[in-house]
Each structure stands twice: as structure tokens, then as C-alpha cells.
């Protein structure tokens, strides 16, 4: 098959390597020439190194790019973590179709940052979905899906890595099935009652709200935790007087409290306790004045963490 890869990030690089080792022909790669985080390791650079043609990521929004796809007799367009919406003409140009690898268990968690949202809502399972692409984002028929458990220690970063790991075999499976014939491809329509799209925003504008349950605070913190790397949601912000800091790790203690939410309590083996609506949460690592620190170095019993804007 002739395959056009549209992608970004590590998942895109891994899929390109997979394609390069397959019996299929990579027609070219559509990606961002400019690295998002300044990293020299990009899909664009990997494609160039492997000798593939490249086009800028925005090309897929241009209806005239469909002509290029037809000229190159592309059978399959694979969209791997690219955030650009394909024009209708481009969507219709490949002979077999366009498929997207989404790091979420569709029909739930369509849209942006599905890993963060799933952790934020305290999900105990997550998944990655390979689906056919339609004009509506993340709404096409499900081809293959892999679900996996999330444990309390999981963070945004660990779940994102798991999505890449679970997603690659789905792409291999798609290629193997298509090699046997299009008629063998499963296509399950998404249940619209469970379909939910999440956008670019971050809950509470990225601020920690102490007047909610400890479970919710802990989930928000781990959803944002891509440490030691940059988080798509940034790091949750908190404030004690004029000390503004970001929380990297926090965990539930199971100890109930009647103290006003935001009250800083005693240190424990993990960090220092802060009152939430129902129980103490222990805050471990923070970032203060651009430096990684133990919360205990910055917070003291009796401090009070305010909620921004309240």
C-alpha cells in the first residue's frame, strides 16, 4: 500500500519507524518543520533522515493538497497525533481512507488532551482508539481499540507513554487487515450518547481549588504531572500569601479534617498536609521561584493557601 503519514510527537516517530520497516511504501510525511518544544528530535527530522519527502503540517488544511495525494496514488492516510483538521477534499483523496490514532477510549474523551481529562475525572481505565476519519473530529467509526487500567500512581506522562505503546500494535493490525482486504476491516459506529469532546481549556484555569474533595485535588495534580517534562496543561498553581508555586506531586492521606480548605497542617512522610473539603492531602514536590523543591521547604503549619480569585 502507498501510505501518507500525517503526524507529530513521539507517536508519529514510532509509527514512521514501523512503516519504514514494513513492506508498504511511505509516500511522504506531513509534519511540523519547527519543533514544538525546541527539541531536535522531531517527526520531520526523522523523515528527512530516512529519506522521505516532507510537507508542512498545515498542508492537510489546503484542499489543493488532495491533488498531490491522488497523483501519488495514496491508499491510506494515517493521522498520528497531528492537531490539524484535514480539509474535506484531503479526507476524500486516499483510495482506502484516512485513519486516526487517538489517545483516548472513544466515544469518550474525544478532542484534546484526553489523557489529562481522564485522570482529572479519576478514571480507572483508559484506552487508545484507531478510527476512521470523518469531517467531524474524533467521531468516525472505531476500527480497533485497546483499553488498559490506570492506577493511582499513574500520571499524565505515564499514561501518555502507555497510549503510544498500546497504539502501535493497532496500526500494525490495521495494515495487516487491509492487506487481506478492505472487507475484513471492522467499523463500529460510535455511540453518540457517550461521545464527549474536550477542548483546549484547563480546569479552573490551572488553579488548585482546595474546597473540593482530596480525591479531586489529587487527580488534578497527577493529570498535570508530566514531570520532569512539560505538561500540556501546565502545572497546577497555588498561592500562600505572596508565594505562588506549582504543585508537582500530591497524594491523599485518608485522614479526615474539619480545618478550612487550604489550611496547611503538619508534615508527614510524603510532604506537608493541606486541608481539602473532606480530608488532608499531602503535597510533596513543588516548583517555587523556578526551582524544584520539597513543599515542606516552602510551606509551614498554619499557612493558608488561598484560592485564586476567591
Amino acid at each position, binding site marked *: 500500500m502507498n501510505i501518507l503519514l500525517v503526524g507529530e510527537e513521539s507517536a508519529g*516517530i514510532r509509527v514512521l519507524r514501523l512503516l519504514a520497516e514494513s513492506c508498504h511504501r511511505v509516500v511522504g510525511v506531513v509534519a511540523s518543520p519547527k519543533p514544538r*518544544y525546541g527539541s*531536535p*528530535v*522531531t517527526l520531520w527530522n526523522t523523515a528527512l533522515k530516512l529519506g522521505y519527502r516532507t510537507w508542512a503540517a498545515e498542508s492537510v488544511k489546503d484542499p489543493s493538497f488532495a491533488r498531490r495525494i491522488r497523483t501519488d496514488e495514496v491508499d491510506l492516510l494515517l493521522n498520528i497525533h497531528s492537531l490539524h483538521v484535514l480539509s474535506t477534499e484531503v479526507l476524500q483523496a486516499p483510495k482506502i481512507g484516512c485513519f486516526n490514532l487517538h489517545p483516548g477510549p472513544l466515544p469518550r474523551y474525544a478532542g484534546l488532551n484526553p489523557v489529562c481529562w481522564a485522570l482529572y475525572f479519576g478514571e480507572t481505565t483508559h484506552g487508545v482508539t484507531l478510527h476512521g476519519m470523518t469531517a467531524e473530529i474524533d467521531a468516525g467509526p472505531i476500527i480497533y481499540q485497546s483499553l488498559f487500567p490506570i492506577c493511582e500512581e499513574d500520571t499524565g506522562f*505515564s499514561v501518555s507513554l502507555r497510549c503510544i505503546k498500546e497504539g502501535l500494535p493497532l496500526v500494525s493490525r490495521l495494515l495487516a487487515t487491509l492487506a487481506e482486504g478492505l472487507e475484513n476491516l471492522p467499523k463500529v459506529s460510535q455511540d453518540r450518547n457517550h461521545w464527549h469532546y474536550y477542548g483546549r481549556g484547563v480546569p479552573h484555569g490551572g488553579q488548585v481549588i482546595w474546597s473540593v474533595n482530596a480525591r479531586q485535588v489529587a487527580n488534578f495534580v497527577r493529570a498535570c504531572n508530566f*514531570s520532569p*517534562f512539560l505538561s500540556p496543561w501546565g502545572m497546577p498553581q497555588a498561592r500562600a500569601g505572596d508565594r505562588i508555586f506549582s504543585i508537582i506531586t500530591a497524594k491523599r492521606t485518608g485522614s479526615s479534617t474539619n480545618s478550612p480548605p487550604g489550611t496547611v497542617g503538619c508534615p508527614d512522610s510524603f510532604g506537608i498536609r493541606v486541608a481539602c473539603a473532606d480530608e488532608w492531602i499531602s503535597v510533596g514536590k513543588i516548583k517555587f521561584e523556578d526551582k*524544584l523543591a520539597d513543599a515542606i521547604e516552602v510551606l509551614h503549619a498554619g499557612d493558608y493557601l488561598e484560592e485564586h480569585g476567591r
Partner: protein
Amino acid sequence: MQDLQTIGNELAEIFSLKLHVEVPSYDADLFETGVLDSLQFVELLFQLEQQFGVHISLDETDLENFRSIERITVMLAGQNGNSKRI
């Protein structure tokens, strides 16, 4: 099993030739210095699997093991040839 020096040198080569970053020293903090970002980290895992034949499960390993070339070396050497799973 390769000695620590050989592993360290091979790692330095991966950083230089595959990840295109220069690491100031074997004990330099790869995270704090910003040498390693998330993309490069995933690529590093791939390269370690390719070059050293190990399978790295992040569920079972500590990110701290990746903080410097020195620490990665010790982690790889800890395999001792008995198990290829980290």
C-alpha cells in the same frame, strides 16, 4: 556483560548521534539541564531497546534512573545479562 565505561560511551554516542544533543558530562542532570525533553526521552527508550536489547517498562522502573548517563549506565549494567527486562 559490557563494563560500565563501554556502556557509558555507547550511551554518549546515542545522545550525540541519535538524539542530537551533547551531554556536558556523564553525571550531568539530563532533566534539570533540559538536555532531555519528552520526545527525546521516548526516543531514548527506543534506542536503548534497539541497542541494548532491553525492554523498559516504565510501570516498573523509576524515572530517576534516567537522570544522567551515569545512572542509565548503572541501570543497564544492573541487568547483569540475566534478564532483559527493566
